[in-house]
Every structure is written in C-alpha cells, then in structure tokens.
C-alpha cells in the first residue's frame, strides 16, 4: 500500500514540473543549465583533486585533513546561512492531498525526505571523494576516508533539514538576513583578533567526529534532531495556512518614495518599480545576492595573477560597477509583465515609460558605482577601469538593455523565491547579456594586448560618451522598437505558466 503511494506521489511531482507550460519550450535553457551543472561538476572535481596540494602548503604543523576539520564548522555554518536564503522550501501542494484518505504523517515524511533525493545535494561528493581518496587515506586509512565522505553527506542532510526548519519558523525577511550577516561578521572578527576561535572548536569537535570510530554517530544524531524539529513544527502547525504563514507576511509596506513625486509621471513609475523590487521575493533575493557580488572584486583585484589580464579585470570592473543594472536590467519591461496591460491602457506614453526605466537603470549604475569606490584603494588602474566601465555602462549598455529587452516576451513570475530560479528565462536572456558583458571584455583584451590598456579604456569611454551625446535619437529608436514589439510582448506576458 505504502510503496504504491510513494510511487504515485513522486510521479505526480514529476508531472507537475513536466506538464507545466514551457517545459519543452524552454529546452534551450534547460540544456544550458545542464552545461552549467557539468561545468560546476568539473570545477568541483578540480578543486577536489587540488585541495590536498593547496592545504599542504598552507600549514606546516597540521596535515590537510586536520585543516579541513578545522574549517568544517565554518563550512557548515556558512552553508546553512546560504541555504537559509537560497534554498527553496520544498513545498508540496498539500491541500489537495489533505482531503484524500492519505495519512498526514506520511505526507510530512515525504516532504522532508524528498530533498535527500535531489542531485544538487550530492554535488559536494565531487570534492569530498577525491580529497578522501587522495589525502585522507594517505594520512590515515581507508576507513577514515570512508567516514569522511559519509560525515559530509550527513552534514548536508542536516543543513538541508535545518535550513527548511529555520526558514519555516522564522521566515527569511530582511531582519533575519541582517541578523545572520552580523553573526557571521562577528565570528570572523573574533577569529581574526584571536579572541574566540571557532577554528579551534571545530578542530577538536570534528577531529573527534572523524577520528573516533563512534564519532560518526554525532552527525547522524544531528540529522535526527533536525528531522525531529521539523516534525515537531509540522505537529504544532497542523494547517497549511499556519506552517507557511511566516513566508507570506511582509509587513514593511509603509516605505514611501515621495521624493520621486517631484519628477512627475516618470518619478511615479520609478517609485512603482522600486516598490516592485522590495515587495517580491524573487527581486529581494536578487538584491541580497547583489550585496555578496559586490565583494567579487576582492578576489581578483588582490590577486596578482590577474594583473596582466586586462580584459578579465575589466570584465570584473564592469560587473561590479554595473551590478544592479546587470542583475535587474535583464528584467526591465518584463518585470511589469503581470500588469503590462494595465500600464499600456493608462495614461502613460511609451516615451515616458521608457524614460522612467532609463533613469532607473542610470540610478542603479550610480548606486553600484558609488558602492564600489572603496576598490579605488587597489590603485589608479582600478580607478580608471571603474570610470571607463561606468561611462560605458550608462552610455551604451543601458540603451542596449532597453532595446533588446523588448524581445523578451515571457511572463515573469516574481512571487516565487530564490536565486537559482530560472522561470521566465529564455535563451534570449543569454543573448542579451552576451554583447553587454563580453564584448567590452574582448575589446579591452585585444586593444590592451596590441596597443595599451589606456587606449582600450579610452576607446570604451569615448564610445560611452558618444552614446550619451546621442541620447535623444537613441531613445527614439528604442521607442519605435517598443511600439513595434508591444503586441508581441503583451501577448506573451498574458500567458500564465
């Protein structure tokens, strides 16, 4: 009886995704995502095989395995924080099943165990298995290596369960985001100033877990506790409306952007788009993610290996100085898809609508540029690169986005969470991003090789300035394009997936 039920539930979950509209239409994106997964797997394998070597050089006294155990607690906590924001809750549509004679207990167990079968949760094996085989078995024995892999699997299970419990219990609003950010920063600071070392605790605790034959029971116990917590939560909150309640309530709707009123209709529309960003889960999670991406420059600017790769450095400069535009720009226009008909029939002219979006993108660029000014400490080259990138972004890329985004006719559902949400993404999104991101990179790469970096940056700066000088005719071009594509967009946006 029960086996038959599980089969049915799994089958219906599969049907839910395969019968959703656009599953096949979106094949191109799925294939691209497949390549992305493959790429990640290769990268992970690479890290897995080189980890031993890297850690070997890092410390004289401790061997790589010990170092790994020292970092373990940090890895677990950071992964938990990451999951807390990014992991989609596995919700099954419970109500239709609740009225059927299926034991509730059974459904809850199904819901909780389901992520254990998700391949994404086993990606870490590409790192841990090579490391275990190469390094752990070298310093210890095969048994320890095997336990090392198992412990990692258990910890991922624990994290997955714990993240969904915390998310259901506390919700992932802005306050929890701040709280976690502060905790992580505090732990990092305490470690840095040698006041309190999580590293030492981790070394001792995970040392025991790994090297004592009975240690493996501890992560197993942790998984059991996390599971029990989830069960307890579902028992306390019997009804679906209650266990998802934290995820729905967003109280902070009293923010007003009255200063935008001065700019007439354009200001009204800009205020509308800002509210749109702040009141949808998907846009909010992209906003949180952007905060992390701002740190992207630290990795490359501080690494002398990239000093001579001007094209790549410029790519990084453009990415972080135009961060908000690049994150949100691909959604320009289509983020209004759910109320596009409304906007098109109200008293808004196309030129006003596009201008509002234009100024919004400019504002995004200015904000990102200002936020990345601390990178100027890395030297004058970075200053020049950021300036050139900024001018190119507002002089060329903004217009390109406005023009090309009219080809995007997929309705965007902003109510679903999460970063790795590709709903509404088509191959067109990739085609739009290609010229914007990679063309300047290639130009700088080529020009700085054959002439000089200065020549490359000047070329882009002047192109950007020319774009700004021709603002009016270019906007007219975008307007005409918009008018041509309006019907196709409106029709596409009406299709609810």
């Amino acid at each position, binding site marked *: 009886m029960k086996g038959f039920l599980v089969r049915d539930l799994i089958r219906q979950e599969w049907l839910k995704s395969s019968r959703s509209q656009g599953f096949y239409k979106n094949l191109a994106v799925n294939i691209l995502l497949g390549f992305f997964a493959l790429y990640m797997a290769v990268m992970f394998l690479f890290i897995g095989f080189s980890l031993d070597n890297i850690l070997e050089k890092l410390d004289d006294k401790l061997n790589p395995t010990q170092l790994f155990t020292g970092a373990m607690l940090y890895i677990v906590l950071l992964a938990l924080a990451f999951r807390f924001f990014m992991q989609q809750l596995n919700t099954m549509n419970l109500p239709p099943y609740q009225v059927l004679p299926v034991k509730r207990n059974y459904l809850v167990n199904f819901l909780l165990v389901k992520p254990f079968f998700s391949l994404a949760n086993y990606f870490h094996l590409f790192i841990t298995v090579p490391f275990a085989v190469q390094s752990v078995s070298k310093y210890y024995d095969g048994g320890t290596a095997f336990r090392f892999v198992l412990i990692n699997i258990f910890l991922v299970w624990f994290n997955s369960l714990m993240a969904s419990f915390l998310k259901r219990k506390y919700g992932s609003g802005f306050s929890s985001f701040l709280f976690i950010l502060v905790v992580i920063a505090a732990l990092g600071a305490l470690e840095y100033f040698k006041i309190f070392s999580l590293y030492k605790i981790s070394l001792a605790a995970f040392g025991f877990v790994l090297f004592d034959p009975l240690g493996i029971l501890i992560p197993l116990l942790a998984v059991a506790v996390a599971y029990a917590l989830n069960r307890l939560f579902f028992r306390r909150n019997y009804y679906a409306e209650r266990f998802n309640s934290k995820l729905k309530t967003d109280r902070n*709707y009293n923010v007003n952007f009255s200063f935008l009123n001065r700019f007439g209709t354009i200001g*009204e529309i800009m205020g*509308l788009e800002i*509210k749109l960003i702040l009141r949808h889960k998907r846009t909010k999670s992209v906003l949180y993610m952007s905060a992390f991406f701002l740190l992207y420059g630290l990795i490359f600017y501080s690494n002398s290996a990239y000093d001579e790769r001007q094209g790549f450095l410029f790519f990084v400069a453009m990415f972080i100085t135009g961060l908000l535009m690049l994150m949100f720009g691909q959604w320009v226009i289509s983020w209004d898809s*759910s109320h596009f008909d409304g906007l098109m029939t109200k*008293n*808004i002219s196309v030129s006003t609508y596009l201008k509002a979006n234009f100024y919004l993108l400019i504002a995004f660029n200015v904000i990102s540029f200002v936020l990345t000014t601390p990178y100027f400490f890395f030297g004058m080259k970075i200053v020049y690169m950021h300036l050139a990138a900024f001018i190119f972004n507002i002089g060329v890329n903004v217009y390109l986005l406005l023009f090309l985004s009219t080809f995007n006719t997929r309705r965007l559902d902003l109510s679903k969470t999460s970063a790795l949400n590709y709903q509404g993404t088509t191959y067109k999104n990739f085609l739009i991003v290609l010229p914007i991101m990679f063309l300047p990179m290639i130009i700088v790469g080529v020009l700085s090789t054959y002439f000089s970096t200065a020549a490359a940056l000047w070329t882009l700066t002047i192109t950007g300035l020319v774009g700004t000088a021709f603002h009016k005719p270019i906007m007219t071009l975008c307007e005409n394009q918009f*008018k041509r594509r309006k019907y196709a967009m409106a029709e596409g946006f*009406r299709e609810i997936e």
Partner: protein
Amino acid sequence: MIEVTNLQKIYNGVTVLNIPVLTIQEGESFGLVGNNGAGKTTFFRLILDLIEASAGEVVIDDEIVARNEDWKTKVGSFLDEGFLIDFLKPEEYFSFVGKLYGKSEGDINQFLNSIREFFNSEILDTKKLIRDFSKGNQKKIGIAAALLGDPKILILDEPFTALDPSSQIRLKRFLNEMQKTKNITMLISSHDLNHVTEVCKRIVILEKGNVVKDLQTTEDTLKELEAYFAV
C-alpha cells in the same frame, strides 16, 4: 465616439473577430453578450490597442487607436487582473493611477469618498496588498481605478462576475447614475443577460466573431436574448 471599420482578427488562420462596421455614439451604453470564445475580450483588446488587428481599424474621436496614445486620456478600462498592479495597496494604486491623470491627492480622496458605498468598507484602510484581496474585491478596485481618470469612455469586461449580490446591485445603480450625470460612453460585456439589459440601452450579440444581433433595449429584449441563447 467610437467607429469600427472592417475590423478583423485572425489567429493561425482562424477568424476570431470580423466586424465590417460598427459605430458607438457618445453617451451610449453598449452591451456586448455572447458565449465563450465569441470574441468579446478580443474586441475590447483591439479597442485598447493591446493586440494588433489583422485588418481594419478602430477610431476614437476621429483618431486611429493603433500605435497612438492620445486616446489613453479619454478611456478608462478594466478587463482582467492584468490591469491591476497587485503588489500595491489599494490606496497606493489609486494614488498612482490618479497621478497619471493629473489628479491631486485631494481629487483622489474626493473620488474615493464618492464610491465608498460600492467598496462597502472592505477595500480602504485594510493595509493589505491588492494581491491578497479576493477576486471580487480586486474587481471593485479595478473598476474604481478605471473611473478615476474621469474617462469619457468606460470599457468593462464582465464586471458583474465574481461580485457578491449586493455589490452587483450597487454597481448597476452606480453605472446607471454615471450615465445620467456624466454622459459617459460605456462598453460592457456580460454573461448575465439580466444585468446587461438593466444597464445598457443597446445590446449586441457576438457569435464566433460576428455581430449577429444589434438591439435597442426594450421591455422585450431580455426575452429575446434568452430565446436566442436557449438550447
């Protein structure tokens, strides 16, 4: 005044709307009835320039609607939820729409006061976002927003469905009053033959994209309509 000439919409070789000629006078209340797929919404979308006509044109006050923007100041419309901005509170939405039509906060408040009865104190001061309202209340918000810009022409697609009985009666009363006092041209589609005959003075039946009947409402109209749709 709305003039339709030779208007056609063809999807994949199937003609979903074909109106050779149709004129709607200023101040007329025009009711559109027809079964599902008759082309009512398609007709309204063509008037609002949301879809492209395969042939022919719609003219409002001597100006072609397609790819034009001047009609937007004259026409208020609500067809479906796609006309609402659902992440706003109703007050914010009304304020947004009001500003687009050059209304001050005072004008907007005055307007909201005037339709307080229709809202039945379920809409304003609730702190809810539009997406959290019931379908019926969303409809009320949409209809109110369509009226906010003092339109000369009002287009509503099935305004009575999803409304509760009291709201249906209030809406009927409200629309009739508007006709008398403001001389608004109204285009209303409905599946409810009773309501549409009570509100509209002219009723057109669409079937498979064609106008099959064009009636001036009299006492017998309801019977005639019922006879037409009887199976």
